[in-house]
């Protein structure tokens, strides 16, 4: 019996908590993706690159001596206008055409290529490490964890709750949901739909940037850092249902837990295929994902 508890404590608990800290990060990425899709019907292929951009902006600010906590506040404020401009300059142009799904996907894909190479040009291809702002560790359930990971989970939970409240409990969120549900009706009721679109894109981009800074001390910063994450984030969004905040949250936590626990039994290089297999299975049974989409719930 005590052997079982020991296994639970020393084998499973660390995996579960590590999985949770990755899960929170993935959920932050997936939230931005799913909100942008839910409202604009745009698959943002450059989302991973915006995540990297957040990290690079953070690294640059820290290099000129700005405190990490101030950077954490500044990055979303810098990223949001960039996101707003991206929507206005590029996505608006193809948004009203017939096959806008594919055109916007291609456009953001082109943007991703450009951004990645720009990072290489400015910062070089090597990985930049970021000093952990909270050192040390604490004991949880008798196992030692870095404090920063615990902080990451806490702040991630705060952000997720914050986003949920913003979308479902404020009048701003109601405007966004109204525009997603029926843009003509929302427009005739006085919702500035095109600004809501650009604003939502900016919000998603700011979230990706914030995730980038938050994870920089854990994973270090390099030009393709977004790519390694984006497939997992897409799987999460698809399993949860494109456009669903609740779905992104639940699927994000469940899939990363499956990854964490299955890596005890299979080689870690096969955990990604496993998650993908789950995504395919979900798509075959429930093509719209587990939960409905933003504004349609």
């Amino acid at each position, binding site marked *: 019996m005590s052997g079982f508890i020991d296994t639970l404590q020393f084998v499973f608990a660390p995996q579960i908590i590590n999985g949770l800290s990755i899960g929170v990060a993935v959920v932050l990425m997936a939230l931005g993706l799913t909100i942008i899709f839910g409202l604009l019907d745009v698959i943002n292929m450059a989302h991973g690159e915006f995540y990297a951009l957040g990290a690079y902006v953070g690294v640059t600010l820290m290099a000129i001596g700005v405190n990490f906590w101030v950077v954490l506040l500044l990055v979303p404020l810098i990223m949001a206008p960039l996101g707003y401009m991206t929507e206005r300059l590029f996505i608006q142009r193809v948004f009203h055409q017939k096959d806008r799904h594919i055109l916007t996907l291609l456009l953001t894909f082109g943007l991703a290529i450009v951004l*990645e190479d*720009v990072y290489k040009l400015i910062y070089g291809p090597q990985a930049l490490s970021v000093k952990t702002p909270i050192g040390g560790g604490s004991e949880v359930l008798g196992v030692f964890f870095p404090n920063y990971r615990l902080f990451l989970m806490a702040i991630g939970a705060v952000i997720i709750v914050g986003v949920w409240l913003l979308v479902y409990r404020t009048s701003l969120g109601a405007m966004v949901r109204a525009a997603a549900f029926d843009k003509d009706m929302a427009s005739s009721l006085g919702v500035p739909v095109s600004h809501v679109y650009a604003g939502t894109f900016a919000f998603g981009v700011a979230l990706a940037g914030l995730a980038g800074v938050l994870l920089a001390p854990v994973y270090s910063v390099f030009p393709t850092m977004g790519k390694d994450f984006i497939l997992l984030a897409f799987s999460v969004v698809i399993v949860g249902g494109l456009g669903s905040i609740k779905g992104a949250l639940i699927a994000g936590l469940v899939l990363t837990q499956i990854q964490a626990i299955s890596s005890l039994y299979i080689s870690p290089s096969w955990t990604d*295929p496993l998650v993908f297999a789950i995504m395919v299975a979900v798509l075959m049974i429930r093509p719209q994902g587990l939960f409905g989409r933003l504004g349609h719930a």
Partner: protein
Amino acid sequence: MRDSTSAVLGALPSRPVLQREDVARNVLRWFAYVFVALALLFAVIAQVHGDVFFFRLATEALIYGGFAMGVDLLLGYTGLLSLGHALFFGLGAYTSAVVLKGLAPSFWLALAVTLCVSTVVGAIAGIIAIRARGVYFALITFGMAEVLAKAVFNTQELGGSDGIIGVPVIKANFLFFTVDTGNAAHFFFLVLAVIMVFYFALEALLRTPFGRLVVAIKANEDRVPFLGFNAQRHKLGIFVIAANVTALSGALYPMLRGFVSPELLYFHSSGNAVITVILGGVGTLIGPLFGSVILTGLKSIIGSYTEHHLIVIGLLFMCSVMFFPKGIVGSLKGLVESWLARRKEQS
């Protein structure tokens, strides 16, 4: 059968509509003739200068053009955007490399095995992917390619991250003569012939009832079953054919380079094919070949100044999506057609 398939397009097309379609197809065929003529012209000039580098570069452009043709078959004719077509290109390249190195250095055997393997894998991948539509299809294909790339990267038997090196130079046997893949000029002609055979075969395929139905699926997928046709089966069929074309193009790659590496399977590779299709002209089949030549040339030129050529390519691609979504051949085709129509009115 002809009547029933034309009914699929919604209404019975009147005579002028059919004529316009014929004109469009003939214009595209002329673009194909121009392409072959330009390729031969290039070969003559390169041969006179005794060049090897540009022959190799042009052969590579043709191979990537074949890859992109498979993507265009899905995107331009069926309305399915595949973001993971590198799966089949890499599959063909690896299969061919394994056959040439491990089994026998035979051109035809490599192509035959690739055809079989890509049919099986294409059918499995197709069954998974075609259930999904639009962006879901794009993301599933994207994911499948990523998974296979990771699997190959982690498989030591396939060389892992190094890939397979030392694929032998072979002699392709054509009964009356043989082509040495080590000879840059001869191999260029071989690849040109193979790719153009693909082009004309696909063009003929699209004229058959099967091909007309595939186009109908792009126009309105929901309407197809109401007319008594199985949309899913046709989608699967065209998916497998697109996989075959891309894999067979991939099979030529190790003959040119002598090695294959997991990079062929990466998203970068799939993305490149999509860029090629959009730049060249989506839904034209010949457009991707022009696109591939232009893109390969651009990369080579910009690459000699800076290693950051992707910034230029990416910006060009974004501009193309925003301002010239029809691509080069698509835009030119429109001009030629309206010129032909004007001339006809005058006469």
